[in-house]
């Protein structure tokens, strides 16, 4: 089993006493996060208390100093590739190649998840309001549009677990509405979201996780 206390299977993500130290300075400790299907966790805390670091820990970009991370009750070491296959991470950087067109970028992001269907790629871009500019190289698009190209992955992805770090920055009200709708849809279809955002979102089942209590 993952930890001493038995964890029911339906916990998509659970951490046990996660703690992280960088160059002798302990950022946070004793993080016990539980995430079930259909739930969204909003990580809160002042700037610099390690919200993004926690997000990078959960997405295995960083390895914790101590503590364990479990996916569906199994320790990460055993189910690493299943976990990564079921995970979508959109960080501060949009991972969009400015030399390529919006369609080429999204087609590559979809291919990274095993989806090879040009029609659904174009449909996703259209649903994100990029129907007219899908073949323009991204360096001709505005920051908001580039962010929408990155976020149009949310339309295509099959991943259950979403990790979104400030997804709504550089988006206009229409964009925010689109994304909020998409998040709600994902929750309804049994997905789970870990979110960092300073804009409040009109979404139902939101659990706030205050990191300041855990900061060392």
């Amino acid at each position, binding site marked *: 089993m993952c930890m001493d206390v038995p964890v029911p299977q339906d916990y998509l993500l659970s951490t046990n006493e996660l703690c992280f130290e960088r160059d002798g300075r302990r950022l946070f400790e004793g993080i016990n996060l539980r995430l079930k299907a259909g739930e969204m966790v909003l990580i809160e805390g002042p700037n610099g208390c390690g919200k993004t670091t926690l997000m*990078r820990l959960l*997405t*295995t*970009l*960083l390895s914790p100093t101590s503590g364990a991370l479990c996916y569906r009750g199994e320790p990460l070491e055993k189910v*690493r*590739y*299943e*976990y*990564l*296959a079921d*995970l979508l*991470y959109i*960080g*501060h*950087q*949009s*991972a*969009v*190649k*400015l*030399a*390529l067109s919006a369609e080429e970028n999204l087609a*590559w*992001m979809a*291919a*990274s*998840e*095993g989806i*090879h269907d040009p029609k659904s790629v174009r449909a996703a871009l259209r649903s994100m309001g990029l129907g007219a500019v899908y073949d323009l*190289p991204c360096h001709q698009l505005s920051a908001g549009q580039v962010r929408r190209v990155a976020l149009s992955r949310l339309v295509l992805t099959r991943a259950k677990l979403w990790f979104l770090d400030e997804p709504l920055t550089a988006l206009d009200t229409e964009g925010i509405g689109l994304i909020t709708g998409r998040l709600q849809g994902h929750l309804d279809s049994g997905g789970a979201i870990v979110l960092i955002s300073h804009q409040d979102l009109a979404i139902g089942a939101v659990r706030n996780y205050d990191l300041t209590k855990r900061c060392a």
Partner: protein
Amino acid sequence: MARTPSFLAYVRRDVLLAYRRLGDTVAPLIFFTMVCTLVPLGLSPDPQRLSEIAPGIMWIMALLATLLSIERIFAFDFEDGSLEQLLIAPQLIALPVLAKIVAHWLVTGLPLTLLSPLLAMTLSLPTSAYPAMLLSLAIGSAYLSAVGAVGASLTVSLGRGGLLLPLLVVPLYMPIMIFGTATVFYAVDGLHWSGPLAAMGAMLCAALALCPLAAAAALRVTSA
């Protein structure tokens, strides 16, 4: 379950990206041509003296030209965040890294090799040595890309244009250059040049096996 893109898809994408940024890609080739023309100006245009040093000159200049472009293997991906996406893809990271090395060779090493006969002429290298030179540069530049990728992955988070990368990588380039130039020198002297070439082939195989692993480990460390 084809969760991740195939090896060829990675290579095709990187080559396409390099093609879209043609200025960056052609720069090492132009640099290679320019510095090769420095030699006759700097030393002497006398064909006899030039042909004596032509193999060494061409190899050293090919090495420096590759050094210019090594940083680019991971730098762009690190800056726009796609390196992060690569690190959390559900696959062995060494595979896409190998794909990046192959793409870099296709974009820099191979064109350098194809360009070299042109310059061999200006440096009055005997034509009998052309095949040896082409083969030695082809294999050698692949080794340079592979080992360079390890250096690039170690310094990816230190920002572009750092002088640290050449410092780490040039000592590791010396053995392949020794065998590379020897192959061409043997050919110029009319000896059998398959010996040093075989040594280069062996070193390339080792590099292609080990460098992606080392580079993947380094990426996981430095981009954290």
